[in-house]
């Protein structure tokens, strides 16, 4: 098990990570959610021994890794957010290069390279220089490099940023398979809710350097168990209409995106008649009214007052 105990990182500009406690057990996928600047990458940098914490400790099986970083490095793979590959090398050359750095014996490395290429679906693209790969292929190879030494723990920092939906699905499936087949524990950071919802057993939500909520998906959603999310679509939306909507005391977390309006409302409250009369008064046409279970996005909005991707 990897544990972060009171992990803190302060820079001249302020505190980036503020006394967080965190753990991941073998075989589980843990999601780390938070907007840009929440402190996710700094936390990951500390967990992967790239930067030392200002305060606190990182433990592997109850042993501090701050003094003996190799203890953790041997069992940890890191997939950085950036494409950390040599563009002028082929996929195979990149894999052999990074594999050699982990001192994997030659024969074993040959086998591992073939297995990893198959895992990431690049077995037929090995001779092309990486600089000629598509964004999705680069991302897949970026993951593959971290798998060469068969790590027990894998940290993936936003591994699907900026790629097409097809490659994204491929990556999500690879992560899922990796966890199921090799029992690799994965820390998955993202600000894509649906990815975290799909992959992760447990979730940590970070904001402004702190963990503001943690638990299983259901536990997190239960934060909003007494409320429903309502999605309303209207035509001829007006400022006056929105102002009146904002003044409704029973509505919370109101968010408007052109003709689409989201808000949360206590379970059991029937707001539809009020909404209809409001629309009539302001000449607004109600196109649809839909009640939904709260999503992680709603929880985040509820906890921080801000949307994740703001």
């Amino acid at each position: 098990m990897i544990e972060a105990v009171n992990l803190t990182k302060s820079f001249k500009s302020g505190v980036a990570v503020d006394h967080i406690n965190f753990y991941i057990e073998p075989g589980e996928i843990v999601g780390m959610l938070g907007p840009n600047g929440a402190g996710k990458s700094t936390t990951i940098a500390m967990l992967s021994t790239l930067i030392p914490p200002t305060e606190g400790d990182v433990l592997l099986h109850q042993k501090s890794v701050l003094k003996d970083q190799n203890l953790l490095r041997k069992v940890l793979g890191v997939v950085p957010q950036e494409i950390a590959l040599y563009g002028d090398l082929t996929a195979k050359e990149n894999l052999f290069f990074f594999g050699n750095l982990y001192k994997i014996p030659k024969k074993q490395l040959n086998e591992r390279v073939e297995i990893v290429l198959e895992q990431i679906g690049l077995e037929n693209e090995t001779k092309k220089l990486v600089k000629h790969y598509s964004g999705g292929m680069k991302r897949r190879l970026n993951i593959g490099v971290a798998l060469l030494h068969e790590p027990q723990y894998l940290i993936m920092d936003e591994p699907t940023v900026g790629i097409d939906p097809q490659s994204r699905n491929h990556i999500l499936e690879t992560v899922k398979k990796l966890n199921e087949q090799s029992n690799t524990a994965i820390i998955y950071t993202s600000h894509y809710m649906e990815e975290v919802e799909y992959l992760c057993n447990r979730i940590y939500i970070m904001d402004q350097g702190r963990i503001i909520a943690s638990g299983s998906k259901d536990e997190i959603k239960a934060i909003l168990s007494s409320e429903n999310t309502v999605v309303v679509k209207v035509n001829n939306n007006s400022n006056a209409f929105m102002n009146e909507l904002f003044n409704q005391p029973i509505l919370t977390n109101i968010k408007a995106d052109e003709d689409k309006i989201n808000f949360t409302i206590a379970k059991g409250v029937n707001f539809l008649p009020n909404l209809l009369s409001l629309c009539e008064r302001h000449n607004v046409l109600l196109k649809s009214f839909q009640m939904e279970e709260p999503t992680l996005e709603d929880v985040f909005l509820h906890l921080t007052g801000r949307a994740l991707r703001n």
Partner: protein
Amino acid sequence: MMDILKTKFILLKREPVSFIVITVIICLFAYILGLGQQSKLPIAVYSSLDEKLTETLLLELKKMPDVDYTLYDEEEALKLVEEGDVELAVHLQSNRFDLITSPNFLNAPLFQSEISTIYREVMQNETILNTYPVEQQGNVQSILEDANNNPSFIVEYANFSNDGDFIYDAKLHSLFGFTLFMVIYTIANGVNHIVMERRNYIWSRLIVSSIGKTQIYTANLIYSFLLGYLQVILVLSIFHFGVGVDFYGGFLKTLIAIIPYLLCIVALAIFVASIVNTPGKFNAIIAVIAVPFAMLGGAYWPIDIVTSKIILALSYISPITYGMEILNGVTIYSGSIAELAQPLGILLFMSVVLMGIGINVLEKKGQS
């Protein structure tokens, strides 16, 4: 470590353009500014002597170094002096010679003395030969030549190489100057890998692998050094073996003596890498410091001809100053490595200080 080095050289093989371009630029500039220049002083000669004696005298005169004697007719020779194309003309006559000089030519007494010696020897031989019958002149001529080649006394002239006399060899100067200047860019290209790898997180990937930081730094520094050294060996070899530039017997010593300079440039580039965050800024700063260093260090013109005390004082901060001193020392002045301990020591000191600061700052930045 070897894996990193091997990979760097594969990357160089795939993208060799900048290495090749810089090598070509050094060769081109060194050739144009050094070998392309007229390094011998042209002197016009016209003669009232017979053809044979004129030829004998001209042959002897041409043995003078750094001077190029060419035979013209009287009118042509005088015109050349008049128009400033040559600064000196020599009129050879049976018992004397006349020097015709341009108004600004100050070395006439020197030439007067040199030509007198040659003239006297040739005329003396000619007089001796003429005292013998024609049929014996061949034998006498060979006796005289033998006496010349095996004199009873050997007189040697020597001076101290460190007595402050400035010797200028345009070919070597431009070759050394441009090599030392341009190799800064080649080494910087190697060190720029560190900046790029830190920026695109390859560096982080290396750090979290099983390889130690010391090995990562060492591999990168060795690569940058070898890149520069390879270029220097290539350029100097082309000029020594290909073009035939005279290294005064110090070619191998040059290749050894340049090592501290290259180490210093690697350290300088590491220092620059530590204070910038992007490859673009790194290249900009290297460009900004390399040119003044070349000017102050005497890469473009000999620092010995500079009289400004400020420029001379500033020249001490340029590694090129010491590089030029060392390379001139082991070639033109035939100095030993031990005699050049001071500039070598200064370069090594600069290397240690710049490398120490650079790596420390890089590490501190990596942790913030």
